[in-house]
């Protein structure tokens, strides 16, 4: 008997993951600014405060550093905190706790403790929120050993990756995309997990590999669909996890297609595309490369407020089509 397909939005899928985990494990609690009665800046926590009470859905003062410190302490003391940042940009305020404390405890104390916390970061541009509320800082945190960083691109992955993050004994940073919160998709009711550290091939192809993250997965898939009409078969890999990186999937794909494009929203310079390019250049896939590696990332600029410039600051589908076409046709 086939269960009927059930669709949820990306935000609903996250809320369902939170509720499912909280039902199953009393140690889990939520923290964040306006996540209680207000339901969260992007209405992700919604009415969870009514279901689980203010002890488990806690509004915090406007101090990201304070909240992050409380989360690290709670995790060390045996709780399973999940901290929501209103905007991922505010991770900068909590860097001491994230980078110097959460990421390092297990290593500095000889493995005697772990910091099982989850931090959720609404990120990305496209909402007209300007330079201080539109960044994609996932590569900053992915640079830190001791952290795990995931970037779900679909409602299905948002639930599955969050449940895996909650289970994980180490700090996991979940970068959600603000433009994806309203995206609908099939989400099974059961409590499934998507393994951290595994990429997924969203579309198979043999001429060029596109490694994309978050919302760029959808733009890459749109581009691949158009290019397929021109006889260019692009393979689209959704990275899902930035750290630890699924190197095997990327290397295998590039060995097959011989061409690589990285599409990501974070600033191109010193970003995730640079890491993947270097990974391929260092790997056995090097001898399979038949074209320079292409990086399509955010421009070297703060995200502009002007909507036209805001769009131009990050990869968009037409640009991806054009550049990947040039790559596949040997023009770059």
């Amino acid at each position: 008997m086939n269960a009927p397909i059930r669709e949820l939005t990306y935000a609903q899928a996250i809320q369902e993951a939170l509720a499912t985990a909280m039902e199953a494990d009393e140690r889990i609690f939520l923290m964040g600014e306006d996540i209680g009665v207000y339901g969260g800046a992007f209405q992700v926590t919604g009415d969870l405060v009514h279901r689980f009470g203010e002890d488990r859905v806690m509004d915090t003062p406007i101090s990201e550093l304070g909240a992050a410190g409380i989360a690290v302490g709670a995790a060390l003391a045996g709780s399973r905190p999940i901290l929501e940042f209103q905007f991922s940009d505010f991770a900068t305020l909590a860097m001491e706790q994230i980078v110097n404390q959460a990421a390092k405890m297990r290593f500095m104390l000889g493995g005697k403790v772990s910091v099982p916390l989850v931090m959720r970061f609404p990120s990305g541009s496209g909402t007209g929120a300007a330079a201080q509320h539109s960044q994609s800082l996932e590569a900053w945190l992915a640079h830190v050993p001791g952290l795990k960083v995931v970037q779900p691109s679909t409602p299905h992955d948002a639930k599955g990756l969050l449940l895996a993050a909650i289970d994980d004994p180490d700090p996991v940073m979940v970068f959600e995309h603000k433009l994806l919160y309203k995206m609908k998709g099939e989400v099974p009711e059961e409590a499934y997990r998507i393994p951290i550290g595994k990429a997924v091939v969203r579309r198979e192809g043999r001429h060029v590999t596109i490694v994309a993250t978050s919302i760029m997965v959808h733009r890459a898939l749109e581009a691949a669909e158009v290019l397929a009409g021109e006889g260019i078969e692009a393979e689209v890999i959704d990275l899902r996890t930035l750290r630890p990186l699924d190197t095997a999937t990327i290397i295998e794909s590039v060995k097959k297609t011989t061409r690589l494009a990285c599409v990501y929203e974070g600033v191109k310079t010193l970003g995730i595309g640079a890491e993947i390019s270097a990974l391929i250049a260092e790997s056995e896939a090097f001898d399979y490369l038949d074209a320079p590696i292409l990086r399509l990332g955010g421009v070297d600029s703060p995200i502009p407020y002007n909507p036209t410039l805001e769009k131009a600051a990050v990869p968009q589908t037409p640009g991806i089509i054009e550049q990947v076409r040039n790559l596949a046709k040997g023009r770059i």
Partner: protein
Amino acid sequence: MPVEVILPKVDMDMATGKIAKWHVKEGDAVKKGALLFEIETDKASMEIDASSDGIIRNITAVEGAIVPVGQAVAMIYQDGETVSASIAAQPLPPVKPITPAPRPDAEQPAVIPAASASGRFPATPLARRLARESGIALESIAGSGPRGRIAAIDVRGALARPAVPQREGTDLISVDGMRRTIAQRLTLSKQTIPHFYLTVNCDLTRLSEIRERLNAHAPRDAQKLPVWKLSINDFIIKAMASALNQVSDANVIWADEGILKHHSCDVGVAVAVKGGLFTPVVRAAETKSLSQISKEMRDLAGRARARKLLPAEYQGGTTTISNLGMYGIEQFTAIINPPHATILAVGAGIERFIPIKGQPVLRTQMTCTLSCDHRAVDGAVGAQLLAAFRTFIEEPALMLA
């Protein structure tokens, strides 16, 4: 500011040009208009002049180098300007012999690879590995990628081509751009244009008489030399133009958008040159006198042999005349020179006995075969054109009408 000397675009579809010869060297003082260098495209050679007065510096392309259109090949400095070392430090290398393998899906013509200063050839890692594994030298492969980069497709293309037998007693002659263009265009023509052929014999009795009289009565110039010496070919050009003018449905070319009908009758004439041929075009030949055509043709043929034709002088027209009569060839069929719709293959004047009123009479005949592009010129139209041509040859006085 120093003035850049760039490789100019002298031909519509020109992507690169070869520096054939420098007439100046580093440090030479030049005046505006002085000859700087000669370039060679796949069709012609061209002289490039200085655009301003000054001192020549930073010559970056040696003789033989193939340079993209628009690239600076030298600088002209005014008095007191300092020389930029960064440009001077990067001389372009000479070109190596090529075997082009154009990328099938590439829209740009293949760029000829240039060895870098270190003697290495730009190639993708995959191309290098394939070349290494199959024992083929990268130097023997032409890269189709940007800046001549060799990609896997180029290596596979080189491997797919049968090896040239390099037995003792043979020499491999490397070929130039013109030869390649001829190879490419005529292969395309013969493979994609549906040719059909029409043949007639033209009686040259009256034409020969008139030609002799016209030449005998040619006025003399200051040196007491005749101002014209008409050839049979001049009559053929005029007759073909007159025939096209009369059968205007044949004065066409096949284009993707439709059939392009020409207003004036422009006739290309194949001129053999060392290593190939050119087809300079006599414009509006139906409006020109025989002596005008003769004079023009002498000039065009001379400059064709010296490879000094301008692209505009060998482009356009709807037909070509190819005359191999001087070799004693009686009859042959020619391959249409794209985008033309017809080509007339002209044989030698041959004395034959032909029956006139039941008696064999000795007459000089010239056999002409018209190749037609059936997409643009049907059998009946082609036949009308060739019949009109024969009438003008056999009754040359009609060309005066």
